[in-house]
């Protein structure tokens, strides 16, 4: 009996062992799981089903509704095409795409923020080249395409221009005894204005940190002011320079100063950036950094006379201190696994037709990223001022040059840590440098591609 039981246990163990070995074999045979596979594009540019992962609402309130209406118009024009719009969230935009890309399924058209968030999937083979899908004459009209160039090719379509203007509340300025029509132009002036506002019982700067974005935004507006070129910015990610160099990290000291002097709203750490903008619009703070789209929404809400806009006060002495922080923001690209690449490209090109550009601006107030959009369409003086800032040559959004991993694990949280007092500027700079090092070792292929791209190849 005992021997039978023992044999049965042996057989049971053997079966279990066989199952484990089979599964282990399966697991190890799968290291290079996703080999590239070729898909045939549908020849007909006006037929097929497209899935479009869309993000823009946070930058440009009203953009999702406009895109839904545009799709309806397009489907009415071309009966054999159907487009499913899937709005995406800011927090999960990159993660959701990375997850779906691993299974080579999901959207035909996806959106990521310009430069590194677009180029990283490009280098990973997840994006289809626009070459051959969009006519060069069409692409020549698109603005800021240089932000998404790698290997001499444009990989994504810009939809709108987005600046990060510094804005102030004129009523609160007046209340504090400041000139409501003049924003601070230098850092010393900015600190003096903040002190005066605080003394008058007004929150000088309204901002939110919960989503961490401000940590990187501050780097984009203030942190680049000691640099002379974009190449210098790239150097810190290729390992030629260190983030701990004050040239790169002194902005953390400015952030620390603002925090220690109590110039931010008290709930900065428990609200996100969108909530902060809502609070600003309600007069709960005198100054903030925002987007053109939000200014446009405030103009529509009748707040135009209360708001002043300009570039970020000048702090640094580098050449980049002269440029406004602006970008094409989110860019649309066609996924490498899409079975309807030509249809997707045709739709994206259609979005840039002059009537759509005008309709987009009318609905959202955000400037279309296209030469064919005439400045004459802009009637509002505040928006004219923003358009002039965005049209300056040399503008850049430094955050876009950071690899997504460094952005989300370095610039954002450690900037926030300085504001909340959980880190010091020196420690935060060292931590950001570590996050760069981590990215270089964890993503060796991306690092190699970045270096190649940074060298201009």
């Amino acid at each position: 009996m005992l021997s039978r039981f023992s044999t049965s246990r042996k057989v049971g163990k053997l079966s279990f062992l066989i199952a484990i070995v089979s599964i282990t074999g399966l697991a190890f045979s799968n290291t290079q799981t996703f080999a590239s596979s070729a898909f045939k594009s549908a020849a007909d540019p006006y037929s097929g089903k497209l899935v479009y992962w869309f993000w823009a609402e946070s930058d440009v309130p009203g953009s999702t509704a406009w895109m839904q209406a545009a799709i309806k118009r397009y489907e009415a024009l071309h009966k054999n095409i159907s487009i499913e719009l899937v709005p995406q969230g800011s927090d999960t935009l990159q993660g959701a795409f990375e997850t779906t890309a691993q299974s080579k399924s999901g959207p035909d058209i996806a959106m990521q923020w310009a430069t590194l968030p677009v180029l990283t999937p490009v280098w990973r083979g997840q994006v289809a080249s626009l070459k051959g899908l969009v006519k060069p004459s069409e692409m020549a009209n698109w603005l800021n395409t240089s932000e998404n160039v790698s290997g001499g090719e444009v990989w994504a379509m810009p939809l709108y221009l987005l600046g990060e203007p510094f804005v102030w509340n004129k009523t609160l300025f007046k209340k504090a005894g400041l000139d409501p029509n003049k924003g601070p132009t230098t850092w010393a002036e900015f600190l003096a204005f903040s002190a005066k506002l605080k003394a008058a019982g007004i929150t000088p700067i309204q901002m939110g940190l919960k989503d961490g974005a401000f940590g990187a935004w501050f780097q984009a507006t203030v942190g680049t002011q000691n640099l002379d070129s974009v190449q210098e910015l790239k150097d810190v990610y290729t390992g030629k320079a260190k983030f701990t160099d004050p040239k790169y990290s002194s902005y953390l000291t400015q952030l620390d100063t603002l925090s220690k002097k109590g110039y931010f709203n008290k709930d900065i750490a428990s609200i996100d950036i969108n909530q902060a903008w809502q609070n600003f619009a309600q007069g709960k703070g005198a100054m903030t950094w925002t987007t053109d789209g939000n200014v446009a929404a405030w103009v529509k809400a009748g707040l135009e006379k209360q708001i002043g806009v300009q570039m970020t006060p000048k702090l640094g002495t580098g050449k980049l201190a002269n440029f406004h922080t602006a970008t094409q923001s989110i860019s649309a690209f066609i996924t490498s696994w899409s079975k309807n690449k030509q249809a997707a490209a045709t739709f994206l090109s259609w979005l840039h037709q002059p009537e759509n550009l005008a309709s987009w601006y009318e609905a959202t107030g955000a400037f279309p990223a296209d030469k064919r959009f005439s400045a004459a369409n802009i009637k509002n003086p505040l928006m004219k001022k923003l358009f002039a800032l965005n049209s300056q040559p040399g503008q850049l959004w430094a955050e876009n040059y950071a690899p997504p991993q460094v952005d989300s694990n370095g610039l954002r949280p450690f900037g926030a840590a300085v504001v909340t007092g959980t880190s010091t500027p020196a420690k935060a700079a060292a931590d950001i440098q570590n996050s760069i090092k981590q990215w270089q070792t964890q993503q060796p292929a991306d690092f190699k591609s970045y270096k190649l791209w940074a060298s201009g190849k």
Partner: protein
Amino acid sequence: MIESQGSAVTVRGKNRLRNGRYREIWPAVFLLPAIFMLGVVFVFPLISVVKFSFYAGRVGDLAPVGFANYYNLLHDSVFLIAIKNNLKLLITAPVSVALALTISLILYEGVKGWRTYRIIVFIPYIIPGTVVGLSFSYLLQQSGILNTVLNRLHLSKLALDWLGNGALSIYSVGGLLIWSQLGFSVIALTAALLSLPQEVNEAAIVDGASKWQKQRYVIIPQLKNTIQFLFVLQIINALAWVFPYVFTLTRGGPGNSSMVMDLFIWQYGFSLGSVGYASAAAVYLLGLSGIFIYLYSRIRRNQEEL
């Protein structure tokens, strides 16, 4: 004759042996699909995680790095914060079980409407973690509902920055974890209480035991197994099931101060595609959970031996 008898005995013996072996093998054959399925859903992912932990890069483009991920994690300040926070959250286990026990005993004493109260206590458990997190993020903001109420009650000193203060945020998450998991513990303990033999209680009362003595020396010892089970469950929750609360409440901030291991793993594995680094972190988490499960099983075994 003898020979043929002998050979017949041998054949019969062989058949019996064969039948016996069949009988032994057959159950194992029937078990194979179940073992295989278990392997597919449990062992395969586990082996994959361990395998990926030795690579850098992303799925489809992996490069072997040996133990570098494990080494780097031990020098990663954010990962160390995440471990510390998970360990801090362990405090929720005794607090949650003690609270649940107190509530269950009160309900067991036959409070009027105890069934309704039990349902009310259970409701937070069935609300999805993301909904709970989002609601509490508005409630606990510096200028949120809780602080507004405290300020109106002239208790401004208690109106803290529950989510924005780096030293407090992880405890806010812990509080939320207790609140949302309490219902399950109350239900489990109430069910255990209702199944206790009444004779023992009655004997204790006859022997002159006070209410407190009855609970302390009669009822609670009989709930030992349930309490231990809930304690281990809460420990596992604190280690590996806090993602929805942290993500919706603080997103690991401010400045990583409320980072926990499962959010860390999600960030690297899903959001950033650093699957090797995330897998190594997952192996550490598995090891940590394993330690607690091992300790629990040792305690159980010692008790059974006693």
